[in-house]
């Protein structure tokens, strides 16, 4: 699994990925710069951009998982690594690591530039915001990876994942009370916006992560058993 993990990380270090992550960071900086006119702090702007960036990283994970089937590169990977479970877990871990790594870098860089847009946040506050962003990015990357592996098609994976996070959960939010406490996307959004108390955090993370972990488990099981015709 370690080999698959390292190979996926190496594969992901392309110019395209670098530009994409730079774009995500640019969005965060824009949000931080936009805080002033709204009489808010750069930290507030950082947090507002969190769910957007986490959603984009979800799309990246979905594309990475499904793209191998669309392009046919999954054939070469499976021939090189006969254990599909190890391969799938390695790729999942890599997607999550890229999301986590981005969050840490974005937090550090965001702290460095925040002084340009207003009062610099405290280190502790920024660290908390970074940890929340990290959690959100990892949670949604797990979901993106699952949709990619299940659908084996980049358009389908993006459609399913974005439709769920951007539309379906918000429709359900309007219909069911307390949906923000148990729908994973909405919980993740509250996480990035610092709306969860410390006491509620473990339960909230479980609500957010568990459904996606189970979905990924199902995706991995099907990946192990289904024929690859790409």
């Amino acid at each position, binding site marked *: 699994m370690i080999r*698959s993990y390292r190979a996926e990380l*190496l594969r992901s270090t*392309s110019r395209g990925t670098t530009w994409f992550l730079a774009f995500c960071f640019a969005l965060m900086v824009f949000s931080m710069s936009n805080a002033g006119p709204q009489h808010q702090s750069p930290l507030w702007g950082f947090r507002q951009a969190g769910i957007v960036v986490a959603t984009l990283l979800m799309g990246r994970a979905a594309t990475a998982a499904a793209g191998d089937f669309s*392009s*046919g*590169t999954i054939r070469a990977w499976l021939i090189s690594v006969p254990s599909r479970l190890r391969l799938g877990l390695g790729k999942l871990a890599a997607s999550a690591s890229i999301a986590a790594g981005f969050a840490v870098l974005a937090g550090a860089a965001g702290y460095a530039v925040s002084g340009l847009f207003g009062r610099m946040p405290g280190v502790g506050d920024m660290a908390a915001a970074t940890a929340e962003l990290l959690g959100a990015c990892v949670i949604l990357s797990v979901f993106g990876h699952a949709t990619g592996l299940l659908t084996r098609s980049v358009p389908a994976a993006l459609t399913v994942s974005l439709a769920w996070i951007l539309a379906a959960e918000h429709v359900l939010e309007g219909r069911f009370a307390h949906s923000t406490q148990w729908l994973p996307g909405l919980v993740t959004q509250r996480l990035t916006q610092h709306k969860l108390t410390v006491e509620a955090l473990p339960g909230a993370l479980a609500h957010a992560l568990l459904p996606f972990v189970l979905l990924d488990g199902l995706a991995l099981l099907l990946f192990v*058993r289904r*024929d*690859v015709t790409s």
Partner: protein
Amino acid sequence: MPNSNAPVVLSDLSKSFGSTRAVSSVTWSPKPGRVTALVGLNGAGKSTLMRLVTGLMRPGQGAVRIATGSDRRPLSAMIEAPALHTALTVRRNLRVHALLTGATAAETAEAAELAQVTHVLDRRVGTLSQGYRQRTAMALALLRRPEVLLLDEPTNALDPQAIAVLRTMIREVADQGCAVVVSTHQLRELDGVADDLTLLHSGQVLYDGPFDAFVGPAGLRIRAADQAATTRLAALMRADGLAAEQAPDGIRTPPNGRGADATAQHVFATAARAGIELVELSHLTPTLEEAFHSVISGARS
């Protein structure tokens, strides 16, 4: 019969897609150090068989046994079009798969050299020609010197020069002890390269043996001094129970149970009794395509 000590052994392998039996009870193993041509019509089951061997598909019945324990990679393959990361350089594609297969830097360099891609290592795969992409895919497949190498239609979309390079590469890899299996429609490209031939038809193995023996004799061609004598000789041969088809280039008699030499002596004797002078009596060798179609036609009937 497959060699149980072979690195890869297929035992009674079958695969169906709905009501279509794509591979039917195939028992087979590629032979180390030899190039096997896996041939068959479209839909014969060649690609399906390769996907079953590589684990891309699960068999409905039977098993693929892959021997482990050697330093070398037991099995590698290049299935259909080259599957490369086009945004990455050749070097990075090799490094990714070196990580996956556990190949060392030396083994990676060896594979790159064998596939003749050392001079394009720093080029993005997306900028390479089809021929070089094929070579890059070959380099990935050659990492850690596999014991069995499956190549599914490797010459597709390649120009004649690239095909010649690929043929040389295939031969070199086989000479290093690898069992190379090449699936192709282009039978002529394998002439002079393949040692063995496995013919698939409707998912079943119709022939599995030496390439040269597959072609086999196609009977005799006989010519007399003139057309009238040839026609008379043909009639005499038919009267003697020999099949004799008159063609523009003489009389053709197909193989029969007696053997070519005995048939030739019979024809000599018949011509001598009738006072007919023969100017040619030669063995016919069918083309590979003729042999192929003959076997397929026989299977269909």
